[in-house]
């Protein structure tokens, strides 16, 4: 399904808003894939991540902007009762000029991250300096802001693809 605007189906909206962890699939220029868990926020038709500058993900995205991003919920009591949203899109790493020219959006993303992950934010505020520099939360020093613009998505329920109805109002 190709999203035309941010009025995704309700199930998609719910996972993008409420999903706590996502899995980012990247690959290098030779097609070697990598998948790792990330935290994220949704902003319009994109998800935003903050990724360590030294991570392999960043190296891969610089070589190949095409990424997959999956959000799912698991039911520990019933392994078959799961929901997953797979989005495919293009990743953009924000440099300082990109942030400055999209300052409103960047500040919105920061506010969304702080609101969605208050305990992580508190941890980084109080104990972040104890971490190795590459894993601290400081933008540009340690981390980069990455936008994944959603180009396509598919929704899975109980491990099977499901065609969703019309976009939510």
């Amino acid at each position, binding site marked *: 399904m190709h999203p035309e605007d941010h009025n995704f189906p309700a199930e998609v909206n719910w996972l993008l808003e409420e999903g706590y962890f996502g899995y980012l*699939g990247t*690959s290098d220029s030779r*097609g*070697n894939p*990598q*998948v790792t*868990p990330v935290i994220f926020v949704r902003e319009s038709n994109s998800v935003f991540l903050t990724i360590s500058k030294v991570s392999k993900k960043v190296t891969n995205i610089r070589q190949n902007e095409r990424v*997959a991003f999956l959000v799912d919920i*698991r039911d520990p009591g019933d*392994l078959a009762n799961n929901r997953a949203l797979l989005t495919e899109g293009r990743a953009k790493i924000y440099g300082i000029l990109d942030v400055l020219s999209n300052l409103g959006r960047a500040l919105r993303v920061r506010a969304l991250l702080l609101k969605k992950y208050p305990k992580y934010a508190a941890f980084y505020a109080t104990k972040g300096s104890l971490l190795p520099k590459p894993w601290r939360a400081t933008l540009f020093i340690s981390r980069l802001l990455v936008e994944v613009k959603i180009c396509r998505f598919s929704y899975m329920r109980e491990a099977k693809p499901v065609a969703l109805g019309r976009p939510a109002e």
Partner: protein
Amino acid sequence: MSQASAFAKRVLTEEAFAYFCTTDMQNNPHVVPVFFLFDLTRCHAYFLFSRDSKKVRNLRLRPRISFTVDVRDHVNPLENKGVMMQGQAKIEPLDDPDVDREYIKHLFEEKYGWSSSQSFFRHDHAERVLVDVTVRKISCWQGPTFVSCPSFCVASREPGYACVSSRGRVDYAQGRCSSTGSP
């Protein structure tokens, strides 16, 4: 057993889901949650997939894969743990006489506790393939740092294999897992 080995072994044997990543010929990654088995002795992972699924179509063209198994902590990022593997996949049709279906069935049911009526084997064998992944690289992390290579890692005993060291860099030291460079 080292702490890294113990936690990696626990994650790989007890966690139900892996996140499996393939790429197509245009280098578009594809990620899906899947059930899995991990053989600590051989450092191989096993998956049962639908023959016509997107991931299997990708594997037929590009057998290089990555999968991650992790434990999430909603409060403290230092408690997030995970193992990410990269390797080479081989597709074996379940109706292939060389595939020991009963053994695979036993392993999956032992891990997931399904009865025969609920198991993957309720499906037509012709529609399923066994995907056998030879793991060539393992990265383990606890919180924000990489941890040393687990003792079962194939890189610890086979030349030419790689793992991510405790400092987060790949090292290929002729079959040894050692730490070089900075993250």
